[in-house]
């Protein structure tokens, strides 16, 4: 029966075609998402970063200016809070789908660079100029001699406080050179006078612990990437904060556990405390939440006056090693860091610029909170100890571990000693490699 025969082979052909189509779509679905599409001759870049809405508005404005100056390039931006950003980026990087241009943290560089995620920006020096950067800070973006990331801003730890309410409580304002004892006394005085904790419990913050530790001449990590402190040190720190929490001088466990890296979920942002330890750049986010404005106070020093805080590259920009548009990505990085107009728009929302000529140039133009940050940093010039080297890869996990172990203390499930020993054990395992 020739008729049936033809029909069958026709069916087979349709089937084969369908299968091929389906298979293709499966493959495309797998591999296609990472590519930046170029439609109509224009290049599309993905640029991701973490931060608050204030930074978002300024970044968007700068990016729009970039697109105007480079008509062929379309930039898609996206941002998130630090914790979700960190996790999403790690997932994307592992899947070979890292965004073309990404904001990076000090803690990410070592891992991302050695893992082959980042492009060597030295190869892009025709479009990306680094001549005006402070050499010391620029070097923090180098791994094995190659420049994988460029510092975007300079920041320092600070204690942000609600100026009006602190004054209204009738407690003496923080001043240069105050010590941890002075700080604890201020927290207690605020709590006594108002019934509300003076500030966020700093026990959960690895950053605050680092400042405390550095004031005593120690560090989080040694030069050979081992732990720079002992369980005894951590026990003393946690005993100190645990006592303050029990007294109600700093925020309760219920309040502290809501911290997720965004200023909105801090006790200061929610109006349940007067102060908060944070980096100076993100502190601008409090302005939208604290109606009468905030001031920046230096971090407490050690009892002998040794300051623990330091200038740190607040964040970096890097380009994905497998981007389809290395040149255009480098152009975007160059624009964000070296363009004068962009610098004026971005201001100090990512820290005080690391590009020296831009820093001097915009210093006079800085407005509002940017000026506050600039003036906050000025007295420290030349007085702080050198920044630590970039933390080893295991640190990004340890930062979370630090919070979780302190959770056990603040919910009174473990003593400071037990939690500190847990932390040190885990840290040693994490840094093993």
């Amino acid at each position, binding site marked *: 029966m020739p008729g049936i025969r033809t029909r069958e082979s026709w069916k*087979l052909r349709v089937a084969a075609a369908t299968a091929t189509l389906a298979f293709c779509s499966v493959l495309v679905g797998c591999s296609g998402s990472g590519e930046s599409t170029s439609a109509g001759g224009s290049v599309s870049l993905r640029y991701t970063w973490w931060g608050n809405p204030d930074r978002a508005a300024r970044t968007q404005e700068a990016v729009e200016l970039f697109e105007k100056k480079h008509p062929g390039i379309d930039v898609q931006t996206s941002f998130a809070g630090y914790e979700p950003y960190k996790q999403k980026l790690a997932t994307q990087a592992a899947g070979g789908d890292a965004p073309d241009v990404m904001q990076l943290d000090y803690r990410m560089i070592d891992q991302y660079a050695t893992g082959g995620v980042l492009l060597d920006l030295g190869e892009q020096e025709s479009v990306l100029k680094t001549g005006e950067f402070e050499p010391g800070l620029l070097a923090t973006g180098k791994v094995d001699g190659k420049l994988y990331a460029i510092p975007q801003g300079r920041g320092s730890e600070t204690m942000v406080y609600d100026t009006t309410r602190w004054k209204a409580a009738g407690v003496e304002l923080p001043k240069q050179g105050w010590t941890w004892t002075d700080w604890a006394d201020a927290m207690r005085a605020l709590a006594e006078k108002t019934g509300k904790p003076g500030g966020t419990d700093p026990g959960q913050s690895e950053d605050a612990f680092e400042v405390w530790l550095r004031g005593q001449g120690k560090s989080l990590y040694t030069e050979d990437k081992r732990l720079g402190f002992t369980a005894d040190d951590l026990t003393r720190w946690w005993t100190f904060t645990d006592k303050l929490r029990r007294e109600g001088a700093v925020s309760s466990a*219920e309040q502290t*556990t809501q911290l997720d890296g965004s200023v909105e979920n801090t006790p200061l942002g929610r109006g349940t405390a007067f102060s908060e330890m944070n980096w100076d750049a993100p502190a601008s986010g409090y302005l939208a939440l604290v109606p009468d404005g905030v001031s920046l106070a230096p971090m407490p020093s050690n009892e002998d006056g040794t300051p623990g805080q330091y200038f740190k590259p607040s964040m970096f920009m890097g380009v994905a090693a497998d981007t389809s548009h290395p040149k255009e990505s480098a152009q975007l990085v160059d624009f964000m860091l070296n363009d004068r107009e962009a610098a004026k728009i971005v201001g100090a929302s990512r820290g005080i610029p690391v590009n020296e000529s831009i820093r001097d140039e915009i210093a006079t133009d800085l407005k509002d909170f940017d000026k506050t940050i600039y003036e906050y940093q000025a007295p420290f010039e030349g007085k702080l100890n050198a920044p630590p080297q970039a933390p080893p890869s295991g640190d990004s996990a340890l930062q979370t571990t630090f919070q979780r172990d302190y959770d056990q203390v603040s919910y009174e499930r473990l003593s400071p000693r037990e939690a500190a020993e847990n932390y040190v054990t885990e840290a040693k395992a994490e840094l093993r490699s």
Partner: protein
Amino acid sequence: MTTTQIPTAVRTPDVDPPSKPRRRQREGAAWVFLSPWVLGAAVLTLLPMAVSLYLSFTDYDLFNPPQWVGLRNYTQMFTEDPRYWRSVVATLTYVVIAVPLQLGLALVVALALKNMRRGKGFYRSAFYAPSLLGTSMSIALVWRAIFNDGGTVDNLLGTGGWVNKPGWALFAVALLTVWQFGAPMVIFLAGLQQIPTELYEAASVDGASRWRQFLSITVPMLSPVIFFNLVLQTIQAFQVFTPAFAVSAGKGGPADSTLFYTLYLYDRGFVASHMGYASAMAWVLLLVIGAVTAVLFRTSRSWVFYASEGDR
């Protein structure tokens, strides 16, 4: 229970059975038609599983090539990691709280809806809606806001927020799951409607109370459906992730009280970059779920009643 006899074949084929070469040709066509799914299963399921099994014996940080470490991930998990055991306890507690509550509520609502005459469609949709919405991140975030310190529940009950208390947070998350009882409810409804009304009529003639009828007719007749829902929801509960992730901002807090297994697995894999360890955890989870399901099937012999068995 008699059902109308469905003819096994509407009409007998009036052609001869196909000869061998033609059958082979048809098989070929079948494989061509199946190929998208076969390939999908192989490429998207079996291959990743094989890779994951391999990774579970390695130390892999996502960026550098995996290093073979043998059973170290497994031994570390069972002997050196207190947080792992906390995640196991949190997950088991959750399964034991959430599954019976959810199934109980689903059954109660299904019973209430079964005999409803008016507005049945509306109520069914209304109770089913949370199941559609509930798996989304946004509802979980709303949940967090409601149960947070200063949230709606706090304002109404003055409890100071559930998601911030280690003893309560797990319950808040479980409540989110219990609230999504729509899917088992619809299945219960279908099952209830299969029970012949003659049984109830006969029972009431004999003077059996409603409670007696429920225990002696509804439960046994419904037992296959209960069993089906139990297995399904238990497997799902073991893999709970989204609500805890959203409610605890990804940390499994406070104080690890909602650190569910999958959340800790995610943390090890994507926060701490220990993909090998995470893969090992995933395989242990697979084996445990397999074992629990097997146990459920084993016990089902003593309590699940299939109507067809009565005919034998």
